[in-house]
């Protein structure tokens, strides 16, 4: 009876199109936003910022990006790491070339640059599908990482090949660099994530999102009813890459501060974990992107606590266990619940609607 829909009538088109049609959802969402914006910034400390909240927000953004491409448009991509690297290096180049530019604008421009690169690497998707495409997207991963590693222009000819962020402020509070307070970096990421998630949610509910899903469900049928495959696939690549690029920019500028491209954007550290997030969270679900990101970000911390602190294993052995558990979890999810955590949530909602009655 908690999720009671009775008595909530949709009497106008506007209320029919609402993102949260149910009062309960509206209340829950408002509470969540209230906590996120007005409580957490005051209690956040450096550990929560660096270990959980900021990585969670950044990876949610990357997961939304990949979910747009893979979950909604059906094009499997393994090149997430490469695209995040584009976002990071664009941020670095713009930052060093235009010292006065606002960081928010820099991050968004980096997203746009990544979108352009994404269109370029999305071109093969018009000819090839399925596995062939998945492998082709690996080309972008390897090529881009190699490019940023080997062409010195991208890292301003520094000796180490590393790129390091310089301090930038929003409303005269530093949000990047070593001196940025935890609440500032958190709020900066949070604002971007909330705004961009709303944009994504609405894109998916609009004409363009419906054409993505049509292509995903059956591309030939979609083409016959007049969905242009060129425009649809490339727009999915562009928008997905925009999100991933912004995530990459934040990952570099706000989260890590200094990166070395072959380590930070490796296929094993970025591309596969983000793919895990959307599989475990739920393919083709906004909520799933967040749940998956939360799960993947907190899992290593929880496991480390359990195995290193409780059982007393060495860090190396615990790491091996972690890899094993990741793999097993992925298989278990695919077998037991192919629609991921988001589906579990909707089942729970269904149960709550009738609770405490059996039916």
């Amino acid at each position: 009876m908690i999720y009671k829909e009775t008595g909530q009538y949709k009497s106008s088109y506007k209320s029919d199109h609402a993102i949260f049609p149910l009062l309960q959802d509206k209340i829950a969402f408002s509470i969540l936003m209230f906590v996120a914006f007005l409580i957490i910034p005051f209690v956040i400390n450096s550990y929560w910022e660096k270990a959980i909240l900021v990585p969670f927000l950044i990876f949610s953004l990357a997961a939304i990006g990949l979910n747009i491409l893979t979950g909604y448009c059906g094009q499997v991509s393994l090149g997430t790491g490469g695209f995040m690297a584009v976002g990071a290096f664009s941020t670095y180049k713009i930052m060093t070339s235009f010292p006065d530019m606002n960081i928010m604008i820099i991050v968004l421009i980096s997203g746009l640059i990544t979108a352009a690169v994404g269109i370029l690497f999305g071109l093969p998707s018009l000819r090839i599908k399925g596995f062939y495409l998945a492998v082709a997207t690996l080309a972008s991963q390897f090529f881009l990482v190699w490019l940023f590693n080997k062409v010195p222009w991208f890292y301003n000819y520094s000796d180490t090949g590393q790129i390091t962020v310089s301090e930038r402020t929003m409303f005269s509070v530093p949000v990047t660099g070593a001196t940025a307070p935890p609440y500032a970096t958190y709020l900066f990421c949070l604002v971007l994530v909330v705004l961009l998630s709303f944009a994504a949610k609405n894109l998916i509910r609009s004409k363009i999102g419906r054409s993505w899903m049509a292509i995903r469900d059956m591309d030939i049928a979609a083409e016959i009813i007049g969905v242009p495959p060129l425009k649809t696939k490339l727009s999915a690549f562009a928008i997905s890459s925009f999100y991933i690029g912004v995530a990459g920019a934040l990952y570099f500028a706000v989260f890590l501060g200094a990166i070395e491209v072959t380590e930070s954007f490796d296929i094993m550290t970025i591309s596969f974990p983000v793919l895990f997030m959307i599989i475990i969270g739920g393919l083709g679900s906004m909520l799933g992107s967040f749940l998956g990101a939360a799960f993947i970000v907190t899992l290593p911390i929880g496991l480390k606590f359990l195995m290193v602190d409780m059982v007393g294993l060495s860090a190396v052995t615990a790491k091996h266990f972690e890899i094993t558990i990741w793999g097993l979890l992925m298989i278990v999810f695919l077998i037991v619940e192919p629609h991921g955590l988001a589906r579990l949530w909707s089942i729970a909602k269904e149960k709550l609607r009738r609770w405490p009655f059996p039916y």
Partner: protein
Amino acid sequence: MSVELLNFIETVLNGLMSGVMYSLVALGFVLIFKASGVFNFAQGVFALFAALTLVGYQTGQVPFAHLINELFGTNYHNWYASMPNFLAILLTMITMIALAWIIERLVLKHLVNQDPIILFMATIGLAFALEGVGDLMWGSDVKVLDVGIPSGGSIWLEEATIGLAAEGSDYYGMYIDVLNVWATVIAVFLVITLALFSQYTKTGRALRAVADDHQAALSVGISLRSIWILVWAISGFIAMVAGIMWGTESGVQFSLSLIALKALPVLILGGFTSIPGAIIGGLLIGVGEKLAEIYIGGFFEIGALENWFAYVMALVFLLFRPQGLFGDKIIERV
């Protein structure tokens, strides 16, 4: 002959040899894909796992020694000092067959009739799980693998080719690793055996029948599940051979599992469904990579093109032939 020409020939020969190594990995992919429609991303980890197990048996490591020692404060390391190569390889083969059986039981059985892409992602999970288990079982330190295959440069070839260059030029002869020659011989032997097996034995015919049409094969009484176990065991065996070759060359370590990523462009170039495609694709990519490294990379003074060149090369091929060079034509029906 001019020195440039000789260098060119040397590069091509070396490319062909490393291409054979790629083909060896790609072969395992193709076999599984043909028989069960699964694109087995874990093939590279199979090779790593097989090589780890082989070294473990050879040196008599106690499985899960690190874990047991840390949990119970014991100090186990080795059962025995060494084991004959032949026996160790045999035991590794048995392990790989057992692994195939476990995978069929625990994973594939539950994913029948799912989308191919779901199965693909399941094998990514499998790759992670197996890698973790391998590390837990045998430890993650770099191990030396030696099963008695000779390696190093061929002195005979160097001396034979040194006279070919023009008088007065400082040419030192060709350098070709003997290990690669052995790998080529073994790969050729393996492919011939596989071809004979699938052509002339009853099981081989059943295998081809399953690859052709699952339902038709089922209806004439072929057990799909036993064929799947068989195919996964065979590709486990091929992974072991690949693992031995690559492990001898560069030591048994995590990076061994990345050869799967090297084999992927070979696959899309040659086509997922074609054994000759895997071989010719491997050779093309091996040669292309080496030539690109020396001629394009040398021209622009930039290194490590090997990381992506194969992918871009395969991608260009794909734009003209979306099913790869030898793959079955993709026919879509609505």
